[in-house]
Every structure is written in structure tokens, then in C-alpha cells.
């Protein structure tokens, strides 16, 4: 094992993952949230079709989709946990482990790339202290990743912070943008 990986295991990211695994699981789909799912089920002729929306709800409530969350969704939709995991791992937007309070996605696909997106990524990594893509900053606040085409190429470089979409980000704008995130 390389020294880097040893350091990684001790990071707050992994610690919270570990803690979550030892606490009893509290179901997501109760009360109002369960009613939301019931309404969703009326939209489709099959239960399975509500899988993506159900997983979105889990992520909205918990911040990520844990294996226990997958089991709960599987039970509700008459699917197997393995099937649900297969679907979760196919899509890039479901977090399979906890992420920072602010999940920052920077588009670096060709059109943004030729407009200087690489420098925006570097600025985020430097100013958040995350240091590396996909690794949460030591204070647990920021996770920065590169994302493939956010579909706002004319407003290079687009950045998503959680659900918020920010257009025309340049390296110079990064410190102010981060300061705005309390």
C-alpha cells in the first residue's frame, strides 16, 4: 500500500463513511417522502420506472446513496438490491459515498476546454484546499470534480455547485464564488 492510500483512509471522508455504516439505518421513505414516492408511482405503468426518481429522493434526503438506501429502494419497488446497485453505478450523478457540503462540478469537455476550463479546475482545487479531484477538502466542505459537458458551452466555463448552475466562471472569479458559499 502506498503512503498516499494510508493517508486517504484516515481522511474525514472515510471516517464519516465508516460511522454511517455502524449506525442503525433510518428509512428515507416515511411520511411526506413516502407520499411523494406514491405519487411518482402513479406516473408510470411499472414500479421499476420510478427507480431513478426514487434514487434522486434518497440522494436529496441523505446527500448520497448508501447500500442501505439501495436496499430500501429495492424493497419498495420489488427489485433486488443487486439490480438497484447496477443502475446506481451506471449513472454518474448518484454519489456512492458521502461528499463535501459543496459538491463542485467543473465542465472540461472540448468546447469549455478550448476556453480555458483547465485553469478553472486548478483554481478550484487551490482555493478549496481539496488539492485533488474527487477528494473532499480537509474541512469537509468542498469536493471538486471534472464533469463531461454540462450543456452550457456558450457560457464557458459552467460550474455546478450542488443544484446551482453558475455560468461563465473564470479562474479570477473562483475566490469570490467560494466566499459566497457560507
Amino acid at each position, binding site marked *: 500500500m502506498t503512503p498516499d492510500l494510508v493517508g486517504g483512509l484516515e481522511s474525514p471522508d472515510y471516517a464519516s463513511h465508516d460511522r454511517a455504516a455502524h449506525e442503525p439505518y433510518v428509512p428515507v421513505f416515511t411520511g411526506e417522502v413516502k407520499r411523494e414516492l406514491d405519487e411518482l408511482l402513479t406516473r408510470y405503468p411499472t414500479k421499476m420506472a420510478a427507480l431513478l*426518481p426514487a434514487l434522486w429522493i434518497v440522494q436529496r434526503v441523505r446527500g448520497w446513496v448508501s447500500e442501505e438506501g439501495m436496499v430500501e429502494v429495492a424493497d419498495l419497488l420489488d427489485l433486488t438490491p443487486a439490480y438497484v446497485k447496477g443502475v446506481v453505478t451506471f449513472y454518474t450523478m448518484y454519489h456512492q459515498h458521502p461528499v463535501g457540503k459543496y459538491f463542485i462540478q467543473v465542465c472540461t469537455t472540448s468546447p469549455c476546454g478550448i476556453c480555458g476550463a483547465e485553469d478553472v479546475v486548478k483554481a478550484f482545487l487551490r482555493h478549496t484546499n481539496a488539492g485533488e479531484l474527487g477528494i473532499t477538502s480537509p474541512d469537509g466542505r468542498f469536493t471538486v470534480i471534472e464533469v463531461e*459537458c454540462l450543456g452550457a458551452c456558450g457560457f464557458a466555463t459552467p460550474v455546478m455547485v450542488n443544484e446551482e448552475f453558475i455560468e461563465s466562471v473564470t479562474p479570477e472569479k473562483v475566490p469570490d464564488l467560494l466566499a459566497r458559499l457560507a
Partner: protein
Amino acid sequence: MGYPNQPHQRETTVLSRYFGDTEARSLDGWKKRGGYKALEKALGMAPADIVNVVKESGLRGRGGAGFPTGMKWSFMKPGDGKPHYLCCNADESEPGTFKDRELMRWTPHALVEGCAIGAYAIGAETTYVYIRGEFTEPLYWMEQAVKEAYAAGIIGKNAMGSGKRIDVHVHKGAGAYICGEETALMESLEGRRGNPRIKPPFPAVSGVFGMPTTINNVETLIAAAPILMKGAEWYKKMSLSNPKSTGTKLFSVCGNVQRPGTYEVVMGFPFKEFLYDLCGGPPHGRKFKAVIPGGASVPIQTIEEAEATLMDYEGFVAQGSMLGSGGVIVIDDGQSMVSVIARIARFFAHESCAQCTQCREGTAWTTKIMERIRDGQGTIEDLDTLLDIAEQMTGKTICVLSDSCAVPVVSGIKKFRSEFEALIQGRRFHPVIAAVA
């Protein structure tokens, strides 16, 4: 264009007329601007007549393939006793394309109306609008619009008092380029991994939930409303080139250009004027070198080819490329074509669903070799290897993602071979130094 700039006088704003007009987003505002009149008219017509008007107008799919919309609708056989479905493909993920995003965030009711018209025309009671998960703003506005339309009885079990049931549901994707492929979209909608299906059966026979389905792009459905209101003749006349390409088309422009944004022009508009006049030309002190005119998966044009192009389905083909989705990526002389193509290959390697071997391995190999050449580690044999891999990736897989990765590589090597060779022979890429103002 409307947003962020005023429309250019040479634009023809049919669909983009209300871009930047925040009041057009609400139901009241949309109705004040003539909204839902087309749906009212449609519900008073026989579905077959609507299909005929759309057929007559010459409207073709705006998502990339350019299939005649009226003909697609006519594949849905009425009275077969099965539920029909309409899917709106709003999974806009082709690099360079962001027109549907603008349509949905500024005129969400236009899409609700278009969906309702389309659903009625093909005998569907349910429409699913599949919007990619990253589009948080369009998702918000579309959900608001659908809610408002339901509350006002425009859609629902008795749409506008017609006695017809028309449901529209917004379905949020979860991050997968491949779900913009129509059969992958249906798989995803059913709650599966987004792996494309083998065709046939085509969606009109066995689509989502195994039922007859039509899948249309956002722009296509929105165009149906003005066609119904103003007639097929009016739409057909909007063409500067040939009768096979009619109407207006939204082009989203990005990359190294003065005024990026979404522009709406009549089919057959001269591309040269479009690039230099409407879009403002290259950044100061630079020159255009290449254009990818229809999203990352179409062949790259040299600027000479681009300048000779008429902007329609046939015009782009005549100049070595394709109209595709209308996502124009402009590249200036400050960019290394090898870097640009390597990044495109990386995109496809990331987005391959890994179902077909040619694509799963081919996109990864292409990326590795392209990046090796970019970093000055390539050999001259690599170029032949790339072309060989590209041939193995073309026309041999379930969907065209594999072909899409091969296309920019092949056209890039063909048209910009000297840049590849220079890097291989150890000469670093030297961008033309811009004259600083």
C-alpha cells in the same frame, strides 16, 4: 438570440423570440404571447390532419438525425388497442449543443404545448419529458410549467375541455450522455441502465414499456405549434437553399468566438456570414482554423469548408460534415487540433456504455493514443493504428456512439495531418501568437 444579447437583425426568431423575456415563463405571460392557441386549434382537428400538416411543412428532427417528423408520427397506427407514448428527448448532452436548454429555461410552456400537440397527433395519453439531471434550471421551469398547465386544465384528464386525456411528466436523468440515444433513453425511463437496444424493433412498434412510442427532440416539438398556427406553406417558404430543409433552426455557438450563444436562422443561411457577422468573428487578433458544426460527433470542417457551407441538412454534408444537433464549436489558430480531438475522444471513452466491445475498447484505445501523440510520445504508425481502430468502430455497434468517436479522429487526421506529424516528430505545438490589443 435574445439572451444574453439582442437578436441580430439577420436572425429569424420563431422559437427564440421570447428568450430573455422572464414573463414568458409563466402561464399568464405565455398566454398573453399567444400561447396554447395552437393546442386549442390542434384539439379541434383530426390527429391525421395534424400529421399531414407537419408532413407538408417539411419539418425534420432537430436532435441530430434529421428524420422527417410528420413521417415519424405517421408510423404510430391509430386504433391498435395499445397505449401509445410520446417521449421528449431533452437529454441534450452533445458537446457544443445548448439550444434545448435555452428553449426550456425561457419558454417552458412552449414545450408543454408542443408535447401536448405531439401526443394528441400520435394518439398518446402520456408524454415523458426526459431532461438530463445536470439541467437544474430547465428542470425547475419545466416542472413549474407542467404544474401550472395541470392546474389550469390545459393538460390532464380533460385537456382544454376536449375530453382527451393528455398527461405530461418530467423525468430527471442521472448523468449519462448515452441516454440521449433514443433506445437508451427508453431503457433509462423504464428504470434500467442506459444501454441502447438493438433495432429493429423500432420504437414505433415496440418502444417504452414495450408499447408504440415516438421520440422527438425539444426543438422539433416546439416547432409544431407555429406550424399549426401559420400553416405548412409559411414554414416551407423559410428556406434559402433547397426544399428538403425547411423552417428555422437554432444553432448554439461556442468555443473561440466573439459572441457565443444561441442563434435562430432560416435553413440554408450562409455559414460564413453567420460566423463572422452574427457571431462576431474570431477573438481579437486570431483567425478561425476549424469548425465542428453539429456537436462533437460530426466530422470537423476546415474553415475553408465552413465558409463555403449553406446551413442546412444537405449543405453541411456537401462540405464534409453534418448539421447534427446544431452545436457549432469554433476553433481558432491558438488551439492544437490534436489536443481538441484527444479531449473529444476522452469524452466518448467516458460516456461509452461499454455494451459493445468495439466501442468500449475502441474509445479507450483512441483516447490513449491521441493523448500519447498530444504529449509528444506518439509514433508515425500511431496514425495508421488510429485509422484502423476507427474503421473497426464504425458501423459495427448497437448505437452510433462508437462511430461518433471515430468521426472526429478520422476527419482530424485527414484534414490536419501536419499538426499530428509535427507533434510526432518532436516539434511542440506553437500557437500563432495573437497580436495583443
